[in-house]
């Protein structure tokens, strides 16, 4: 059993190594046939043709960090759920306990998920899930000239035959 497991993982390793070898092959081929004529203009960072100002390695929006935190919570939850998912409904286990096993496992896991969901609700209520939203711009300008006057001017200067053909 253990040997089978190890040989199966060696096939996984084959896929990983194989992918790296495939890329290395491509890169070497490209390295042989491609030209290499670097100059200063070519090697500047691309910024729509402008000369780049400053360094890009700067501060970043804190929200990305919060998203990462919430993600870690849920990822841990999912890691716990996977082994649970493969055993809670095993036929032999359920039959030997006359059905108790399955319901007990579900109840336990529901409590676990419920506690984590509380975390999500907390983050939701606190507004951590809300990204910066562009606000629609509203006009707060109040003209002293009444609206109907504008309408009258518009009507006066509307050419009757200016309908689009």
């Amino acid at each position: 059993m253990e040997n089978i497991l190890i040989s199966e993982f060696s096939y996984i390793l084959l896929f990983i190594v194989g992918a790296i070898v495939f890329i290395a092959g491509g890169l070497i081929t490209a390295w042989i046939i491609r030209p290499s004529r670097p100059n200063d203009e070519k090697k500047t960072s691309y910024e729509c043709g402008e000369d780049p100002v400053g360094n890009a390695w700067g501060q970043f929006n804190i929200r990305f960090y919060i998203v990462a935190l919430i993600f870690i919570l849920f990822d841990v939850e999912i890691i716990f759920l996977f082994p649970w998912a493969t055993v809670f409904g095993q036929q032999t286990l359920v039959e030997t306990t006359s059905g108790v096993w399955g319901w007990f496992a579900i109840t336990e896991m529901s409590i676990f998920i419920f506690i984590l969901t509380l975390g999500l609700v907390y983050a939701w209520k606190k507004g951590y899930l809300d990204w910066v939203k562009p606000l629609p711009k509203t006009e707060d300008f109040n003209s002293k000239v009444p609206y109907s006057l504008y309408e009258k001017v518009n009507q006066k200067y509307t050419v009757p035959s200016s309908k689009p053909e």
Partner: protein
Amino acid sequence: MVIAFVLLLLLVIIYTVFAVYIERKVSAFAQDRLGPMEVGKFGILQTVADLLKLIQKEDIIPKTADKFLFLVAPVIIFTAVFSGFAVIPLTSGIIGSIASVGVFYLLAIISLDVLGILMAGWGSNNKYTIYGAMRAVSQIVSYEVPLGISVLCAVVICQTLNLQEISFQQGIWIQQYQTETINYSNELNYLFGIKKLGIEVTDIGGFLTWNVVRMPLLFFVFIIFFISSLAEANRTPFDLPEAESELIGGFHTEYTGFRWSMVMLAEYAMMLLVSFVAAILFFGGWNTPFPNIGSLRLAEWTSGLPGTVMGNIWGIFWILLKVFALILVQMWIRWTYPRLRVDQLMSLCWKYLTPISLVLLFICAIWRLLMI
């Protein structure tokens, strides 16, 4: 199996070449254009020509870049995505590795993709690439939550992580599945998975034993899976990380030549991989959609016994048909829907998909107990 590795590598490469072509043709059709027409008949060799061009392009490394991160990132991105194929069963006989961790390993290894993207974006030391990488990472990790839970729903129904075992459960060959520790020769399939209904479909097979029919709510789970997989693969409407009109090319702005094509190859391989997983988890994998009806043995005629040559040929045919149909839907969506805003993206993931998938997981768990 070594043969699975060779087949899947060839499949990924050939598929990418033609998927790029098909994508351009689909977009052309959607926008009432002709698309590529010059190279070969109907432009069918356009991508081959593009690849030849890309491999001859100069490899430019920006002088402010972190050289090590910049050079290694494409290798990590492609390797992470391609390693996921190791546990995909192409047919009843051809699978890279039957390690019992299966789909769990798959989810774990494709998350490394995020690391490569972050390295590429940060290493380039370009404002666009950093924006792109940050967006990509936050989007991919967020959507991994509904994606993981929707995979769990299918796992709960099947009680195994092994994708080959999941595939066997969904067809007429269910009793053929045997390993040292697992024996399926007494396993039976019932309509909607529920024994109490008393309608046995083990011998009927076809679409009636697919997971979407064994547990009808899995169709909604599939929709959640599909939406999150679009986000995982950075496809429109979730292509904010490489929004051309704002971020040039996103995290791969600074890449040229072969390194750039690695990133592109990884993106298309990701589309293929998530479609494979969707086809296996929800739509029967390499099983035929036709059921046996009385003496009309449609299922047996359209699928060979596991381990035989016919079994492999039919298996590849059916799974690729399902996978390509899903990829076509992905392309169709790309050229139909506009891009989401960042806040819409985040609220869709955390406020809709995650709670809904948790509820569905709960229902699936109860359904599983009713299946025994």
